[in-house]
């Protein structure tokens, strides 16, 4: 307190005459005064945001009402999750397959497509981009029915690959937008330099532009993974074999399979298993996707 007072007084004598308005040191004093309510307020906000995750994780290890685990702390809820229907390894494997194929397809398509939209002029370009954005506007559940008919027609009925194709399509608006602004934020001089060095458009893309759009690609890949890993509407509509269901669906099915019986404990365990890889990837890649978002700066 005494420190603040002296600081303010000394500031006033030195700075105030030159800079009318708020002197620098008194701003620091303001910051000190506001620091405590700011800290308390934001800490409360952080608790609100983190509490649901912490509570779920902790209670997934505890016995509680409506869970198969009855005594002591431990992995009982995880055991009942693991043994649900076809078993967790089957569902995990299916989910991993769908997610990885979706990520790979999304990366390749939006990398090439973003390049085309950012650097080339071709007839129908604007129409194609508009169609990609229009995907956002169609109610998801209804487009899945004709998609089922079409996948049937090409022999991809009841297949995880079919699910991955569909999820890739729904991922296009975000990823194409992201890759287009990523490419647009790279100066054209880089293309020209590559061409002078003897590249054609493909080797320029592969050797020179790929490193430059890496943050964008990481962002696109991360969001494709999160979407595919968590989607639980496409699999039940496109697949009718329980052994080919994905993990979120199995977790959602933990409730309401038998009338009135909901295994809350196993559901918590399921949420933790679903959330863990997402949160880990999100934290590990944080630096990159924040850069990915910043690179184009969403200029509108």
């Amino acid at each position: 307190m005494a420190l603040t007072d002296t600081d303010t007084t000394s500031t006033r004598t030195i700075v105030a005459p030159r800079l009318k308005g708020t002197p620098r040191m008194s701003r620091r004093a303001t910051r000190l005064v506001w620091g405590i309510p700011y800290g308390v307020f934001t800490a409360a906000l952080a608790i609100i945001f983190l509490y649901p995750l912490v509570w779920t994780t902790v209670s997934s290890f505890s016995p509680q009402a409506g869970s198969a685990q009855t005594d002591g702390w431990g992995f009982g809820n995880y055991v009942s999750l693991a043994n649900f229907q076809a078993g967790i390894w089957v569902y995990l494997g299916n989910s991993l397959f769908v997610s990885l194929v979706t990520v790979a397809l999304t990366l390749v398509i939006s990398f090439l497509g973003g390049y085309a939209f950012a650097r080339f002029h071709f007839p129908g370009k604007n129409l194609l981009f508009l169609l990609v954005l229009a995907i956002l506007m169609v109610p998801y559940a209804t487009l899945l029915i004709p998609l089922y008919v079409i996948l049937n027609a090409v022999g991809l009925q009841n297949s995880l690959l079919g699910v991955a194709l569909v999820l890739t399509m729904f991922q296009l608006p975000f990823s194409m937008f992201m890759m287009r602004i990523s490419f647009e934020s790279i100066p054209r001089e880089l293309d020209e330099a590559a061409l002078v060095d003897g590249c054609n458009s493909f080797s320029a893309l592969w050797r020179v532009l790929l490193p430059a759009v890496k943050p964008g690609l990481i962002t696109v890949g991360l969001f494709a993974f999160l979407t595919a890993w968590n989607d639980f509407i496409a699999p039940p509509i496109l697949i009718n074999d329980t052994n080919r269901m994905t993990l979120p669906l199995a977790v959602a099915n933990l409730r309401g399979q038998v009338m009135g019986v909901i295994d809350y404990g196993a559901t918590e365990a399921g949420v933790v298993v679903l959330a863990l890889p997402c949160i880990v990837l999100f934290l590990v890649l944080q630096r990159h996707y924040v850069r990915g978002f910043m690179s184009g700066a969403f200029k509108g």
Partner: protein
Amino acid sequence: MAFTTTARTARRARARSPLGGPVQGWLYAAPTALFVVALFLIPLLLVLQMSGSDWPLLRGNLGWNFPDNYVEAVNHRLFWDSIWFTLKYTVITTVLLVGLGLGLALLVQESTMWKGFLRTSFLIPSALGLASASLLFYVLYSPFAGPFADLMQTWGFTFLGTPEGALWSTVFLIVWRYAGFYMLLMLVGLQGIPEDVFEAARIDGASRWQTFRDITLPLLRPTFALTIVLCVTGSLLAFDQFYILTKGGPDNSTMTIVQLIYNIAFQGQNNLGIAAALSVIVLLALIVINVVQLRAFNRPEEA
């Protein structure tokens, strides 16, 4: 005039584009085009056809009956209720998410260690899928297993048991899940404002509030456009959260338009024709709403 300008720009760009012409452009865009045509355009045309024909879930097309499905869709007893509820929900979530996104962004704008921690805390829920987040809150709100179970039993309240409670409980879940993401978009927008603009305002003696109102807000316009369009479109098509938390209840009070489409398609009547007609109506409404929004945001700034 506008046309000649675009044509000239295009011609100049074509002449200057060192990488190649339209053929190469199409080659790189070909996978995108293939996906869009095979998995979006053709299914969309199929939805249009379904909406004009009798199409039960398991048998397929039983002939053209336009406009019967549209008439039935509009006359469905929950049609207007679900539209009203969806609009109410959209306004609430858009106002909250855009406002909170900006608020949180302003709270953590400068980088210090504490603000970095806060940013990460607000962003972590965005890593969860909507379905996982909904399942998490389904347990959290439960009167048997949740952290508020004892309180709920003592005081006799429920989160999801009343229409108002179900609405606001779902809104809370959505705010929790998406506020960090909108904060990130707002941070990007704030980053895009050149520092010297603020510097100039400071020299002119503008107060903090004046700077915010007359500089930050107007210059964030493109960011507002992006976030509002994203939020409105997403909320009008809301499904996962209601499907898991309320299934449209209690008493159909939280029936969104997509939940209604889903119910018509897969429960009870199993009538894909009516569901498709309803989808076409929603699609047309969304196109109109988005065109209006983009027009409003692209209106040149009056001096």
